[in-house]
């Protein structure tokens, strides 16, 4: 039995549900010789802002017991102009779809970045990062308020006809109003979820493990939270959901599909296993074969009531 891995999301068709999580896969070519692009439906780049950002003081990454990691990169990136000028050759254009993650401190910045990217023809779509825990301004302040979310999606929607995804934070008392706001303004996919805010302490030295003290908590411990967000969002809206949070095996992917996701973002897993896309796709196909399922996409939302 051959399992059909293609997924359709509105106007978009991806050859597999697997995408990369923004910030974990750089500008697309860093893993070049190590990753099998054919297993990926698309990549999402590091978040790009209007101007270059240096990022946070080091150390920027640490581990927590139980398989978690915390990063405090602080959206270090070369800015949209540098990106357009320098990174075209880096992007795996043609090998897979390319979505640009966009970040900003205010509505205007999102629009500026998108407008500049509209000038180049190698972009398949955007993912608006409304949820970074690692910056003082923007990030959670914006993403935490459904009115601000609505405003940004509306303005960006007016600036582009390309595919538009919106990435949200789990630090919301309720996710429904936020996903409804984003969907209502024309978001074509909702990415759930960005990292949790986390922190770790070196008790012997009585110091934080990260230069910025707090950071974004990701990896397997995030999975239960991301699953809940995906499920709650799928109950609230009809827009395709891209899951992000602790996907390291094919069965993790299946959990998210069942909970309602259409796309699956691989993030931290690249730091442990550069062959993750091929392996995870295979593990999901094995699951389908075991259960007599012929299309991966058929799993989406198929959680049965208890």
């Amino acid at each position, binding site marked *: 039995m051959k399992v059909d891995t293609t997924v359709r999301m509105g106007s978009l068709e991806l050859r597999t549900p697997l995408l990369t999580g923004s910030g974990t896969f750089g500008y697309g070519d860093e893993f070049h010789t190590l990753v099998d692009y054919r297993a990926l439906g698309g990549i999402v780049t590091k978040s790009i802002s209007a101007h270059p950002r240096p990022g946070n003081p080091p150390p920027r990454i640490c581990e927590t017991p139980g398989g978690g*990691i915390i990063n405090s990169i602080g959206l270090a990136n070369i800015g949209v102009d540098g990106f357009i000028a320098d990174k075209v050759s880096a992007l795996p254009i043609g090998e897979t779809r390319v979505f640009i993650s966009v970040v900003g401190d205010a509505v205007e910045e999102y629009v500026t970045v998108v407008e500049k990217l509209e000038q180049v023809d190698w972009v398949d779509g955007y993912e608006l990062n409304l949820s970074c825990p690692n910056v003082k301004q923007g990030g959670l302040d914006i993403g935490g308020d459904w009115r601000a979310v609505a405003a940004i999606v509306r303005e960006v929607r007016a600036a582009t006809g390309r595919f538009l995804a919106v990435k949200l934070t789990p630090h919301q008392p309720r996710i429904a109003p936020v996903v409804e706001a984003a969907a209502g303004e024309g978001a074509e996919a909702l990415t759930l979820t960005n990292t949790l805010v986390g922190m770790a302490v070196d008790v012997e030295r009585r110091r934080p493990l990260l230069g910025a003290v707090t950071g974004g908590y990701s990896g397997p411990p995030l999975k239960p939270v991301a699953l809940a967000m995906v499920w709650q969002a799928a109950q609230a809206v009809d827009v395709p959901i891209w899951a992000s949070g602790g996907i390291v095996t094919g069965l993790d992917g299946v959990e998210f599909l069942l909970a309602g996701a259409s796309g699956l973002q691989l993030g931290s897993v690249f*730091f442990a296993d550069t062959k993750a896309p091929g392996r995870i796709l295979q593990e999901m196909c094995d699951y389908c074969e075991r259960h007599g399922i012929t299309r991966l996409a058929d799993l989406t939302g198929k959680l049965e009531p208890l």
Partner: protein
Amino acid sequence: MSPVAEMGIVEEQIEISEGVVELTVRAPEIAGLSRAGQFVHVRVSTGFDPFLRRPMSVGPCGDGRLKLIFAIRGRGTRLLAGKLPGNTVDMIGPLGRGFDHPEEGVIPLLVAGGIGVVPLLLLNEQLPVGLERDFLLGVRSRTVLTVTDSEIERRHISVATDDGSLGYRGDVVQLLARRLDELDGRKVNIYGCGPGPMLTFLKRLCQERSIPAQVSLEVPMGCGVGACQSCAVLKADRKGYLLVCQDGPVFDIDAVDLSPEALP
């Protein structure tokens, strides 16, 4: 420039001194490609806990084998130390930018602190045979040597110990200062790797005497390939960062901030 993923096979596991382990790993591809100063990113768990790979300098290599030599610090290195002959080691590499060899007529001075000796062991092998050089190693005490006695002899390594239990009593940068006095006038190039305080002293010394130096840095890493920006170090001018996994791990000593605050 093109790292590969390779499943190495452990051929030998020995304890060099208490808490310092040497794995001889058969890994023909990486062993064939590695330059001194480059590193491999090693998976320590078969699952995802601990989650991150551990960066390890490529030690002496050749003949399809490379040596990983490391101090047991925490959970990751403890797991790695448990690898026995026949076990596999999941690695990607070689990664990063290694040491540039010295120009004609310049004497390379290899200055290692503790486990920082590893990349310099490979550099020592890759420097042209017969080239004059000096290889200095500082450790706390002879009980925590990071190189075997026989290697010390064979490689003509000059040892400094804090407690004077072997060789020069004092730190390795003081020993280096003496050597520089002896070599007065001759052109040298320093190759350094070691703990933060050593690098701080080394930079001060190099600046005082206007000697060029390349140093290899250690910071926590995520991807190891330049994708995640986890491994940033402050530039010397404190305006922006460089990436250890991509721009380094070997840097010109003048390029990076090596002040105590920058090396927590």
